[in-house]
């Protein structure tokens, strides 16, 4: 699956898409593929503060529970309610299924993250 060129990525396998100062955050195709069938997403609340590289929730698959790390610092403006009943959306369309939306404290933080080619190089290294 292609990694959208307008997204940025983390080494913990989250992606972020920026619209003004609002970032949508999800997990990558590589991440959902490693986790297997996702059965539950533990979401933060709207208004919660998130910090770059700190956990904001977790995803539970039939194999494991993995923490979700925020790529940026900011405040949660929306959570994807649909995931409460249909967490497998993440498996189906990982790059279209956002988990939370965050208002970035510093939108410039976005550009400091990995771009698609850097992330693809990173996972190529991981899977070696």
């Amino acid at each position, binding site marked *: 699956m292609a990694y959208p060129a307008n997204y940025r990525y983390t080494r913990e396998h989250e992606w972020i898409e920026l619209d003004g100062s609002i970032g949508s955050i999800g997990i990558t195709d590589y991440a959902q593929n490693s986790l297997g069938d996702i059965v*539950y997403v*533990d979401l933060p*609340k709207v208004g919660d503060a998130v910090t770059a590289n700190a956990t904001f929730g977790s995803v*539970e*698959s*039939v*194999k*494991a*529970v993995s*923490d979700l790390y925020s790529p940026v610092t900011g405040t949660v403006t929306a959570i994807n309610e649909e995931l409460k009943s249909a967490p497998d959306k993440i498996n189906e369309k990982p790059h279209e299924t956002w988990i939370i939306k965050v208002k970035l404290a510093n939108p410039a933080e976005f550009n400091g993250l990995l771009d698609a080619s850097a992330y693809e190089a990173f996972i190529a290294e991981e899977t070696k």
Partner: protein
Amino acid sequence: MRYLPKSPAERERMLAEIGAASIDDLFAVIPAKHCLNRDLAVPRAHAESEIIDYFRAAGAKNSTGYASFLGAGAYRHYRPAIIDSLVQRGEFLTSYTPYQAEISQGTLQAIFEFQTMIAELTGMDVANASMYDGSTGAAEAVMMAVRATGRHQAVVAATVHPEYREVLGTYTKYQGLPSTLVGYDRKTGRIDLTTLAASVTDETAAVLVQSPNFFGVIEDIPAIAEVVHAKGALLIVSIAEAVSLGIVRPPVEADIVSMEAQSFGVALSYGGPFCGVIAAKEQFVRQMPGRLVGQTVDSSGYRGFVLTLSTREQHIRREKATSNICTNQALVALMATIFLSVYGKEGIRELAEHNLAKASYAAKTLSAKPGITQLFTGAPRFNEFVLQTEESPAQWSQRLLDAKIVGGIDLSRWYPELRNCTLWCATEIMPRAQIDAAAKALAAKLVKA
């Protein structure tokens, strides 16, 4: 899991492989002055017949034939003989944690039945495979509420078993969790609702109450729940006397129920092992500590059982596990399962009614004597009650012991304001004759005067 000792030949090969001449060589780095070069000073080996004689003699030192009015978290109930004969079957007695579902169906089904019965009794959606005891159950329930709410403060009723509160204190001390104690109404012995309302804030994760509480009084759970939920906190109801659920309305307004299931067929055995329980509303299931067994269907469509949600447990997710409860009280929980199966729904109800009747008779008979007053009569209670005596417990307890009766427990140990107050328990196995004898011995001094 097998533990196979090495044969002498294998030891020789291993020593040769690493180039050591003997086992002692492996300890050569320890200075000689720190080595023990004599046999340990332990008694000689004894023959089986000598060991039996030793234990018979030791057993004879036990006091027997006493009627006991002690309760306070450890209750004397009849244990049907089938419990011990079934739990001693090797399939149950020696089985280990059922990680591997394929070879553990019997153990898993027994735990599943336990969970189902506990959930039905407590009015909760889901119950776990058991905790160590009622005290760790209560403490883990508070930790569970902290995880579920993201809040960091607890409110605890002073009428929760004082030893449960001590265990909770051990947990909270190192979690840095502040907790507030809420006192009780002097007329009813129930939690003081006004103080409770003032103590619960937007920071409160959980309110822990007990019902029947430490004074044997049944709390007004719906009223407490209203106060607690108004602030978005979770209500945890601790139950120390599980038999009460045969007649007391289950605490359905609670978010989490923690319970001591010792009353369900578990012997007192000098204080343990007991059997704790956590049950909760389904929305909190992922924050629940300990094992959970689920029912599923295998590839051929047959009913089967598995450990479920174990992705959150320590054997998979070590440092982020919801608790470190590991090998659970499965065998003790099995005793409770057998007990509940033997009694059934009607049987548990009748058992609870007998307890209520015996305790009512005891409270009435004892408090009818001059110089003895029953406290907290303003609220319903189960099989325990509080008496205040003109004499101190130290003054009358010997008179009762001489009559082969163990009286109630002195409450001033935990509640200094309750001077000369004792907590009495009468279960279904307490003969009326002993209640009458206790009343006579308790009042003896006044009779003489």
